[in-house]
């Protein structure tokens, strides 16, 4: 015998508990009533005779206890849904592959999602199986990795653990065994290749859906100060739909329109965002009876549209002059050192192998600056220094690898950066209140405290000092060099585009970052190899913050295949598909091994026996 809703251990403990309670009730009786009689003479004589039948009396007591125990154990067992093992030796094997791709979240006409139907059907399948059979539950998104069969109760538990996978790709899991029954429960939208031996149970039903299949905010190629929103809307319904579209941004900026799309029609639009302020952009579409809502909204971020003036002072650097113009909203003013006027204001200064006598009025990137008063002096020239460390978690190093960086010559300068020392001796760098002192605003990005090769500081302006020239290294030849320049510009002008992301697991290259959604609500996150990981369960604009560093992630479900929820490869007319109605019929015809009702009947009978024997004083 097995229990459907209890593990053997729990069932044992539960039944033992029930038996213990009954036993205690029998043993822990209240003290008997005391009554004074004239004389116990006759009672003693009577009881003396009665003691001859003490054994019989004990048997009566035990009979009563056994009946009570039987009742309690039967009722406790019935609660665990006991089942008999019907088959005699043949192991029943069943594999259920359940499709948990994103489109399974589509809501059917009955109000339940395709996933709800799939789970219910999966559980019904399990109940049909033999109690002592082996069951394997698999999913199309890889949430269940185990390929080991389990018992039915565990299989039911596995089904309860499964959820619709929002972002990851879906595929039919590798299933080599052909032993036993193989069922596949799916809507047939994301999965279309199924093994021949699989019996497909379709949960597909046609529904209405319109969705956003593409959404992107990008600069206008013809105007570096202008941004455009490119969007694509699809009508995946089986009939034409009137769709309300609304594009809203920071402040009061809103664009709305209504469009009519025929069944299966797709429309793309480009919308000028000149009237929108810097900040989050939200696109929503709405129509009557939309069954799949995850694709009805999409998010992005509109960065600043100001033209950034960059003053590049260099005796002549082809690397910098070639790399910088790729950024379209930059206005680069290149000059030789002699032409530099410290009173001319710029958003960003880049000094190549030169530095002014006075500190610049804004952020600056300096490659191998000479000795000037406002910079710490150079101490020595180092030939072919090795790159033993670079801060991969720093925003300047995002997507930048320095593994192949070679430097022919660099200078050693005194650096106030104590990034290494903070980790080993933090009390030396804190003020009286315990806060980290301002000296910590200098960080070694590349190099060591003994030989800092790149140091970033923020006091008073953001400044990056590089201890080697581009000409003395292969840094400009690295694939990450343009990315590095892009990171420098983003960090210095404090502006970023939103990183694109899909629903589900999001990994951001920030250590110990704090994740918030568009409403400022904190999202729980974890750390994975120095990256911040969080789950995005719905489209939105998420922000990962670490100090002054801020990374935005626009999470959208803009996927044409996911939006077209009516393109099922399993049609109800397909003979390979087992319709849920037929399945339900089979369920009713199937013999059940459940015994709970038998147990309840026996317990009821025992209660009657107990009542009868008690009132007949057979058991007292």
């Amino acid at each position: 015998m097995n229990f459907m809703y209890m593990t053997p251990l729990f069932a044992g403990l539960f039944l033992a508990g029930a038996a213990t309670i009954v036993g205690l009730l029998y043993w822990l009786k209240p003290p008997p009533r005391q009554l004074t009689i004239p004389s116990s003479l006759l009672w003693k004589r009577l009881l003396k005779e009665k003691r001859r039948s003490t054994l019989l009396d004990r048997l009566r007591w035990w009979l009563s206890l056994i009946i009570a125990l039987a009742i309690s154990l039967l009722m406790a067992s019935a609660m665990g849904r006991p089942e008999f093992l019907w088959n005699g030796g043949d192991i029943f094997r069943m594999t259920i592959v359940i499709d948990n791709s994103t489109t399974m979240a589509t809501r059917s006409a009955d109000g339940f999602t395709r996933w709800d139907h799939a789970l219910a059907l999966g559980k019904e399948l399990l109940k049909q199986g033999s109690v002592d059979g082996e069951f394997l539950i698999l999913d199309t998104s890889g949430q269940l990795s185990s390929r080991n069969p389990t018992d039915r109760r565990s299989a039911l538990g596995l089904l309860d653990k499964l959820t619709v996978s929002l972002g990851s790709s879906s595929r039919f899991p590798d299933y080599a065994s052909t032993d036993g029954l193989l069922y596949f429960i799916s809507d047939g939208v994301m999965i279309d290749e199924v093994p021949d031996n699989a019996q497909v149970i379709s949960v597909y039903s046609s529904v209405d859906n319109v969705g956003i299949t593409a959404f992107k905010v990008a600069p206008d190629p013809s105007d570096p100060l202008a941004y455009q929103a490119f969007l694509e809307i699809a009508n995946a319904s089986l009939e034409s739909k009137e769709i309300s579209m609304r594009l809203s941004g920071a402040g009061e900026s809103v664009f709305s329109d209504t469009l009519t799309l025929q069944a299966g029609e797709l429309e793309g639009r480009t919308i000028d965002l000149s009237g929108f302020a810097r900040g989050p952009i939200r696109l929503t579409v709405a129509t009557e009876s939309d069954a799949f809502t995850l694709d009805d909204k999409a998010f992005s971020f509109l960065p600043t549209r100001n033209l950034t003036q960059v003053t590049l002072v260099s005796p002549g650097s082809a690397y910098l002059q070639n790399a910088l113009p790729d950024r379209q909203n930059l206005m680069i003013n290149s000059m030789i050192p002699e032409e530099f006027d410290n009173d001319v204001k710029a958003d960003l200064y880049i000094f190549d192998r030169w530095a002014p006598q006075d500190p610049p009025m804004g952020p600056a990137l300096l490659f191998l600056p000479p000795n000037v008063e406002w910079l710490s002096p150079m101490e020595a020239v180092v030939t072919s220094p090795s790159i033993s460390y670079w801060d991969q978690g720093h925003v300047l190093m995002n997507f930048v690898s320095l593994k192949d960086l070679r430097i022919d010559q660099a200078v050693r300068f005194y650096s106030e950066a104590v990034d290494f020392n903070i980790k080993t001796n933090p009390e030396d760098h804190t003020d009286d209140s315990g806060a980290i002192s301002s000296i910590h605003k200098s960080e070694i990005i590349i190099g060591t405290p003994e030989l800092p090769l790149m140091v970033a500081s923020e006091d008073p302006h953001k400044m990056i000092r590089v201890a080697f020239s581009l000409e003395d290294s292969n840094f400009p030849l690295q694939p990450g060099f343009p990315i590095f320049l892009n990171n420098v510009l983003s960090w210095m002008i404090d502006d970023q585009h939103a990183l694109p992301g899909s629903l589900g697991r999001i990994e951001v290259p920030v250590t110990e970052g704090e994740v918030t959604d568009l409403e400022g609500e904190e999202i729980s996150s974890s750390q994975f190899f120095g990256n911040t990981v969080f789950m995005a369960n719905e489209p939105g604009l998420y922000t990962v913050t670490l100090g002054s560093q801020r990374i935005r992630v626009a999470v959208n479900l803009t996927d044409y295949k996911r939006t077209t929820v009516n393109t099922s490869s399993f049609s109800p007319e397909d003979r390979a598909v087992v319709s849920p109605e037929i399945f339900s019929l089979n369920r009713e015809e199937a013999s059940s091994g459940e015994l709970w009702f038998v147990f309840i009947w026996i317990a009821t009978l025992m209660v009657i026996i107990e009542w009868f024997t008690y009132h007949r004083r057979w058991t007292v």
Partner: protein
Amino acid sequence: MSEDGTLFDEEFLKKLEYLEIISNNMVPGHLHGEHRAKKKTDSGIEFADYRQYVAGEDTKNVDWRTYLRLDKLILRIFEEEADLPIYIFFDSSKSMDYGHPLKFDYARKIAAALCYVGLLNLDRVNLIGYAEGITQEMSSRSGKNQVWHAFRFLESAKADGNTSIEQAFKSFFSVRRRRGLVVLVSDFLDEIGFERALDLLKHFRQDLFAVHIYSSEELRPDLSDEVLLKDSELGTTELVKVTPGLLDAYANKFEEHCDQLDSYCRKNGWGYVRASTDVPFEDLIVQVFRQGRFVR
């Protein structure tokens, strides 16, 4: 006891007068003491007559001189002693302090009534209360004017202590007593049994009339489930799981106890009557009279 706290109230006295009439009607003018003075028996003081000896009779009164002369066995007959005493023993142990009405009150009323009738008929009456021994004793009295003295004595009696009829008899008859009628009013719930005590009466050649008192609660106790029965005299307890079968068995045991006492008395030629306290005491007295033991 009556509501005004007096055991022998006006109603009780009226019942006694009724009993007096009843007793006179049943045996007119011949109460025990007077009547037996005329009786001819084999024991006595004064010679009365001769009669033929019958085989099996005691040979102590055979007139051997006549036998030698006539070769016939002739018995001498004497007149019985007159005015033999009545010893009324009433049980005043703790077990009598039970029931509604109390067995002790009922026993005292029985004793009072019998005492009244005895004194009225000029018998000498002793009243003895006993438990483990003699607890109260009213010495021998005769004459109607002693009735109130007897009533006051009974009214002052208390029920306490264990029961030992044997001890009481040993104590009472350890001094020489005249042969008489012992009236024993008791519930006969004696741990060591009644046989040995009553055998003592045989030894002292006393006649006995046993009045067995019980309450209806004793016969059919109102018990259920599990109960701890405490002995009122000994203080011991017995755990009893009460069942209808056990209650039936107890009732049978009680009947058996009564039957044993009855048959024992019959075997010894003694009188026995038993009554529940629910029965009016005067009815019991009439029953006593009808048995012909107390009055003839």
